[in-house]
């Protein structure tokens, strides 16, 4: 339970160790609650354990230890309770694969039937959902002829067709063009009223745009979890942006080294010639940062204090080992 809101998904001590390859620990003693009605973003760099976690939640993988429950019912591959837990869940895989010999409409209909819809209802909902994801014109075409982006849209349609109370999406926008990505994010945001959405991504902007809560995974461990604003308040340090005038590479390098040696500077990131300085003592920074810049002889085009973003939180918590790879 999270506050007064019941958990749609609950993981307790969830652990997954793959045999072979030295026994890789993909998920380590994960305790996680996804509150009902929330849009929950599972964030992490590549290999953090996001996909494995989602596969454990959907019952496609078996945990080495720990339990997953959906609406209080334990998830397992074959028990009646496991089946009941999976009823009313829409799932989209990271790399969706479907029957190429079926048409898009047939595939979405099949998904609806397997989720308990009557034949006529499944047929009607299939067309409605395909229209929603922009595939109405291709509904009669064989899936084998669909592009990667179309398959992703089809995957979203089959996940949505039974109007699930829980939607689990693994990297749902990874193959979509910008327009498709925008449309899907709007769609997910609109589902907030009727369903719980748990989705994984390594795209921070998507999380910031639609999520109520965020969980950050790294090396199979939950680094932190909570409402987005809370995370920003707890982990985001004050930031200053410094844009040096061009042609001062040596001086900027000296300035960077000096800043890194300053006690109240938590970190300095350099990106496209711009410096982003995070500070642990705001008062000391406001008084001492500019004098350091002046002493280094660096001329600035821009000097401003900026609002920390999820990217800054993410990089602070896991980014040092991943070199910002996860930031899109």
């Amino acid at each position, binding site marked *: 339970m999270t506050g007064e809101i019941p958990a749609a998904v609950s993981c307790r001590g969830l652990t997954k160790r793959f045999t072979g390859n030295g026994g890789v620990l993909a998920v380590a003693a994960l305790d996680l609650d996804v509150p009902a009605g929330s849009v929950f973003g599972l964030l992490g760099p590549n290999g953090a354990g996001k996909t494995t976690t989602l596969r454990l939640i959907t019952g*496609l993988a*078996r945990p080495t230890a720990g339990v997953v429950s959906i609406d209080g019912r334990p998830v397992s*591959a074959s028990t009646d309770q496991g*089946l009941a837990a*999976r009823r009313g869940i829409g*799932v989209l*895989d990271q790399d969706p*694969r479907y029957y190429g010999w079926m048409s898009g409409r047939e595939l979405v209909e099949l998904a609806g039937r*397997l989720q*308990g819809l009557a034949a006529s209802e499944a047929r009607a909902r299939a067309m409605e959902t395909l229209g929603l994801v922009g595939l109405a014109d291709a509904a009669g075409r064989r899936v084998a002829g669909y592009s990667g982006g179309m398959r992703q849209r089809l995957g979203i349609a089959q996940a949505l067709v039974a109007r699930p109370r829980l939607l689990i999406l693994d990297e749902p926008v990874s193959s979509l063009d910008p327009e498709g990505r925008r449309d899907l994010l709007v769609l997910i945001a609109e589902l907030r009223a009727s369903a719980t959405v748990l989705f994984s991504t390594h795209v921070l902007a998507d999380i910031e745009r639609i999520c109520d809560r965020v969980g950050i995974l790294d090396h199979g461990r939950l680094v932190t979890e909570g409402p987005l604003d809370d995370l920003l308040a707890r982990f985001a340090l004050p930031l200053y942006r410094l844009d040096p005038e061009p042609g001062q590479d040596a001086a900027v390098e000296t300035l960077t080294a000096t800043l890194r040696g300053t006690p109240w500077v938590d970190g300095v990131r350099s990106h496209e010639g711009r410096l982003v300085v995070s500070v642990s003592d705001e008062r000391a920074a406001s008084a001492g940062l500019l004098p350091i810049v002046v002493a280094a002889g660096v001329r600035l085009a821009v000097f401003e204090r900026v609002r920390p973003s999820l990217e800054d939180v993410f990089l602070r918590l896991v980014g040092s080992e991943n070199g910002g790879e996860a930031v899109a």
Partner: protein
Amino acid sequence: MSGGSILFRKELLESWRTMRLPIVAGLFLLVGLSSPLLAKFLPEIVKAAAGDQLVGVVVPTPVPADAADQLWKNLAQFGAFAAIVLAMGAVATERDRGTAAFILSKSVSRGAFIVAKVAAIGGVLAVCTTLAVVVGWVYTAILFEPLPVGGWIAMAILAWLGLAAWAALTFLGSTVTGSAAAAAGLGFGALLVLSIASAIPNLGRFLPGGLAGPAIALAAGVPVEASDVVTPVIATSVLIAVALGVSVWSFRRQEL
């Protein structure tokens, strides 16, 4: 089982759309057509091919029972080949392509997934075996004389059971190994080993090969002891049930 009937219909539709059913039906049709023809004209063909080398050798005159015997032999070879091909990728290919994960993320039990596939393979084999036996009976009636319909129905059922055994063993390989090639190897290996073992006195009647004798006799209108039919039927049914039971047990424990 949850979702079983929906998946069964999907499997049959897949068999049709991917041409598996038409191709196997065509093969069985050919078997049904060619077997009585071969039984009728093989002696003539042998005589024509051997010429003077057959002097002193009596080539028997073909009789209607030869057609039933030839049909059984052809089904046991080509039919078994088709059964193994139908079952080899049943689970392995779906796991490999990721489509099993699509189905099993829904409210579908793993048992239902397996049973639907097995039922569909059994259904395809039943349709095709019926086709071969019906065509074989008609051609036998044209080329020789009509044989007892009841005996040919019995032969069809026993032939189907034998083919289902090879399909079940291959299906087990497909489920346990997750490789279509390994499953085919297991199916053909089982076919070879159990066919050889069928020649061992007192053992053959407990193997699928033990179905041959009573099936051919019944088709030819020759009475057989009930135990000669019941023993191999029960033994083969148990073999199929064990193979499928282990398949379900194994699949429930697998990662997708």
